[in-house]
């Protein structure tokens, strides 16, 4: 009988044993080494053992009796020290075993980030029963806290298990969304929401700096200064194939042990299977291909022909109640199309990626019923062109009638709930329609349906349409873009009503039709989010136009214009010298005095931007935001200091206003003017906000224009003091920020909402104070110089990609 030695009693080698037992039970005399003091168990089910939803006994695949029945000599708890290929022996801690055929099933080891403190007690990986037991013990302490580093499959399963065990759990993930290798941003958002509902704290883009404590871990420090006290730190950041033994005995290894399609290594009598294997450059971590390998290897050992083939893999997460699925390639790209289905009410998101009439990727959250069918289409490369229109609805809809939303609404029984917020059912709405409410406004007034959060507006309109037939015409409001049927106003209202604080939240909860929006809606949504949630939402540069992204105006030859801020149009000899020096140093071809009372340097190369900003920063100047949908300039005249006609210190007020408002983002650009007397040298009456100083105080007027349209400002308020004028201006700007449609200048917005409404709103002292307060909260984030920020953190992005070695000009 041939002697077969197996190193490692994992799931792959266990499956090899099962195949040998089933097909040729007496062919080999088998010795099985395992460094863990136990045999084969279903390692991927450790998560439910951790949570208490399974026992270890339930996940044992082969127990002692099984090994005895199948005459496998077990050397468990014994490490293999070396393999002597010349003598064909495996050298264990307790002695040698000769082999005719040898299988490496050494699996993988968890990767531990070499952070300061990573070797303290209480820092565990998540790989085997010992790790699981350590976590269970940590959870036994009252009010115990865990930090899980890694928001991938294993980390999240550990987090959910520890939470069920009663711990306070924080997950740290370095990426912008959870499970980024398996999920897109939208599904990652839903997963995060689901985990947060379980009381798990999730911190994204978390940069872990160090694990502190005495002998044992006591807290995790993040780079942003956050301190997370903890009793245990679980590192689940990835695995590495365990190949040292194979390498030491001279087998060919790349990232893992290289094998051919028969699982044979560079030594014809030695095979490898499982996570320690590299095949055609691929590594393996999921169980399905491991089982395929095991089958091929068993056949190879018995002299039968078979070959291992790579196949598409799918992912599932073992957290009770989290239904997700992903398979294939779901990156966007040219020539790829997305089909997206969202059901915000049920928390469902499905996305299919199609290329050349084939389904190449699928991501699903909340509804995974058809996952296997989609997976089959991906694996088989089926031509889906015939069923493209109804593909997203799954196999049940193929060959049948297409889903008609109106038919679905018509089929709803009278007791079906339409408006969840106010508990209004279809029957109530139908009765109201029959009672004479024939448009949305009347339905809102009579039934309250769609009067709160508004997500059912479309549904209410469909009920109107179904009931009234062609007597009801769906309102043709202009949607934001092709990604949604909602208007800007709807989106703004819903972002506030539903407390949507991230782009993925907007895409999902407002049922966006595309995965991540488009070039039209992204800048608008980015603005709405940062205006409504300044502290919670982080400005997304990728959602900005190029000028705002690069904090300079791109010119028609691809160069940029750079314009430092001159507060109220006042400058100094030092500033002028610095500007002149910068113009010389960077060979600026054009230096222009602008209509906004400042100096523009035109023709600056992109790669020079950070350096010229640095020089100007050194001279005390900051960005003039000449490129932004935000505060541009405050134009002033010289006022009482020098002018014989001046009634107030218009320059001083202009400077104060500019210093208060600079850096704030608004729906469109905002320009101010402050004139010291009604002669209006600062041309204040054609600005978004204009102030005319008079003997009795300050006439604040708004909604002027001097561009494509020319319009005089309208009087908003007469202020007696400078403070009062500033308070009104800031309140007006904040009201515009909170209510304006993106890319509506202030005069267009005021025309829509009416000046009377603006006056009435701002006349209330409490409202004005609250607007000022919210403006200041926002400014605590945005009143900062983007040049200095970019110099520090984003300088590399301004360098040309073609020449990475170019030295900085400094």
């Amino acid at each position: 009988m041939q002697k077969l030695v197996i190193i490692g009693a994992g799931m792959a080698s266990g499956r090899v044993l099962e195949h040998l037992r089933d097909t040729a039970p007496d062919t080999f005399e088998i010795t099985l080494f395992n460094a863990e003091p136990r045999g084969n168990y279903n390692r991927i089910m450790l998560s439910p053992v951790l949570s208490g939803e399974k026992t270890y006994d339930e996940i044992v695949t082969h127990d002692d009796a099984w090994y005895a029945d199948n005459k496998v000599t077990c050397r468990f708890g014994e490490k293999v020290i070396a393999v002597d290929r010349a003598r064909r022996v495996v050298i264990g801690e307790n002695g040698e075993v000769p082999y005719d055929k040898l299988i490496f099933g050494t699996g993988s080891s968890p990767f531990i980030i070499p952070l300061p403190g990573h070797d303290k007690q209480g820092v565990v990986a998540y790989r085997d029963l010992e790790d699981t037991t350590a976590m269970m013990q940590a959870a036994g302490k009252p009010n115990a806290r865990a930090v899980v580093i890694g928001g991938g499959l294993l980390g999240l399963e550990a987090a959910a298990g520890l939470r069920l065990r009663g711990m306070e759990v924080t997950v740290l993930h370095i990426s912008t969304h959870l499970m980024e290798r398996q999920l897109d941003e939208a599904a990652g958002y839903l997963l995060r929401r689901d985990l947060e509902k379980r009381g798990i704290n999730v911190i994204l883009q978390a940069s872990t700096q160090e694990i502190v404590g005495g002998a044992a871990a006591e807290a995790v420090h993040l780079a942003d200064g956050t301190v997370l006290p903890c009793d245990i730190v679980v590192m689940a950041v990835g695995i590495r194939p365990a190949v040292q033994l194979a390498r030491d005995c001279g087998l060919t290894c790349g990232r893992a042990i290289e094998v051919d399609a028969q699982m044979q290594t560079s030594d014809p009598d030695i095979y490898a299977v499982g996570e320690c294997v590299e095949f055609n450059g691929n590594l393996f971590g999921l169980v399905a291909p491991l089982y395929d390998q095991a089958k091929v290897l068993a056949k190879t050992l018995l002299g039968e022909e078979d070959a291992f083939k790579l196949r598409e893999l799918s992912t599932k997460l073992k957290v009770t109640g989290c239904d997700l699925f992903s398979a294939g390639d779901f990156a966007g790209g040219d020539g790829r199309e997305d089909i997206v289905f969202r059901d915000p009410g049920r928390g469902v998101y499905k996305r299919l990626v199609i290329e050349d009439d084939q389904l190449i990727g699928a991501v699903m959250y909340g509804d995974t019923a058809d996952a296997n069918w989609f997976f089959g289409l991906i694996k088989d490369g089926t031509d889906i062109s015939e069923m493209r229109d109804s593909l997203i609805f799954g196999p049940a809809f193929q060959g049948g009638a297409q889903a008609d939303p109106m038919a679905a609404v018509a089929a709803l029984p009278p007791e079906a709930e339409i408006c969840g917020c106010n508990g209004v059912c279809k029957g109530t709405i139908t009765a109201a329609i029959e009672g004479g409410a024939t448009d949305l406004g009347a339905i809102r007034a009579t039934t309250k349906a769609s009067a709160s959060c508004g997500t059912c507006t479309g549904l209410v309109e469909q009920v109107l349409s179904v009931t009234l037939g062609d007597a009801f015409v769906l309102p043709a409001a202009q949607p934001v873009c092709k990604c949604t049927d909602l208007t800007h106003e709807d989106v703004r209202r819903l972002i506030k009503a539903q407390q949507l604080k991230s782009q993925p939240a907007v895409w999902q909860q407002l049922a966006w039709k595309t995965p991540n929006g488009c070039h039209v809606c992204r800048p608008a949504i980015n603005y709405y989010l940062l205006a409504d949630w300044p502290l919670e939402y982080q400005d997304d540069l990728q959602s900005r136009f190029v000028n705002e992204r690069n904090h300079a105006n791109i010119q028609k030859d691809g160069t940029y214009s750079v314009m430092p801020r001159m507060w109220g149009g006042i400058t100094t000899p030092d500033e002028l010298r610095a500007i002149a020096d910068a113009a010389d140093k960077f060979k600026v071809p054009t230096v222009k005095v602008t209509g906004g009372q400042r100096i523009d340097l035109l023709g600056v190369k992109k790669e020079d931007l950070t350096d010229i900003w640095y020089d100007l920063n050194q001279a005390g100047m900051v960005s003039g935001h000449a490129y932004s949908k935000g505060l541009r300039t405050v134009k002033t005249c010289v006022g009482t200091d020098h002018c014989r006609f001046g009634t107030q210190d218009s320059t001083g007020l202009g400077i104060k206003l500019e210093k208060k408002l600079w850096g704030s983002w608004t729906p469109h650009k905002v320009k101010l003017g402050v004139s010291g007397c009604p002669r209006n040298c600062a041309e204040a009456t054609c600005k978004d906000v204009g102030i005319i100083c008079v003997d009795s105080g300050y006439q604040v007027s708004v909604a002027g224009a001097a561009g494509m349209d020319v319009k005089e400002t309208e009087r908003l308020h007469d202020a007696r003091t400078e403070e009062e004028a500033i308070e009104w201006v800031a309140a007006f700007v904040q009201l515009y920020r909170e209510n304006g449609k993106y890319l509506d200048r202030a005069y267009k917005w005021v025309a829509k909402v009416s000046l009377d409404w603006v006056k009435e709103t701002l006349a209330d002292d409490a409202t004005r104070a609250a607007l000022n307060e919210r403006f200041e909260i926002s400014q605590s984030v945005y009143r900062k110089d983007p040049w200095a920020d970019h110099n520090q953190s984003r300088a590399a992005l301004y360098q040309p990609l073609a020449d990475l070695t170019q030295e900085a000009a400094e």
Partner: protein
Amino acid sequence: MDAALDLPVKTFIEVAEIWIPEGDRLVLAEGHYGALDSFADASRHASFARGEGLPGKAWAEERPVVLKAFDGSYFQRTEAAQEAGLTAAVAVPVFSGKTLKAVLVVLCANDNVRTGAIEVWKENDGVLMLDDGYYGAARHFEWVSQHTHFPRGQGLPGGVWASQTPMLMRDLGSGYRFIRADSAGKAGLTTGLGLPIPVPGGATYVLALLSALGTPIARRFELWDARAARVGKAEKSAVLADGICAREGALWVGETEEPRRVAAWQGVIGRVLATGLPAVESGTSALTHGYDTLVALPIHLDGEVAHIVAWYC
């Protein structure tokens, strides 16, 4: 699994019965009474209006109701129950949206050896508090439970609440939140079945059945997932998501295998799936995997039978 390894002397639950609305009253649809013939007889002749007796109270108050003593209570079959040695009962209403589908009533016999727990947890101020519970002889555990609360995601009740899914926990001894875990371990409670009980009005209730070694609540548990979002819309069916059995061991399958699936009307589970009504089956060994009795309880969510929980004893 430990809970079901040894042959029990007595099970924790003696009687299980299902009351369904007929007109404006609840009538007995089916029940398992073991050898308690006279109580069975009394029940067959009973019916309850809304608010009347224990089933009627669960209907009227739209919540699970625990009744720990019959004497002087609204319980209407007190005499027959006392003769049968039954001392406590729990009524669980099964609602589909606002519609009452049925009321499941389980009755227990009190003596000093039967340990187990049937608990009702209710959300209050963002945490789950014990609404009421029947604990048999596990008095200390009862006291501890009264002084415990569960945030979302923690422990069996918190886990069920957060996931809106029934859960079967094998390891209450070390995991059921430390303070209860300690006491649960001492009381011999090892296995726990938790399930969401949806009621009109949106209040959150979680029912937990905790089973002990000597007097198990059941010897086989099955959790069936019937959500269209999991099993598809083409054909009404349910898959066995989790389960344990004293005889067959673990009932779940690994990631690469297909779970057991039943279609509507296929067997008792299929019947529950099709009708949306709970079922009690006894005396037909083929239908009850060799056990005396099977209780199957549907959980209706979003207008569909989303889950079916079954226990066999």
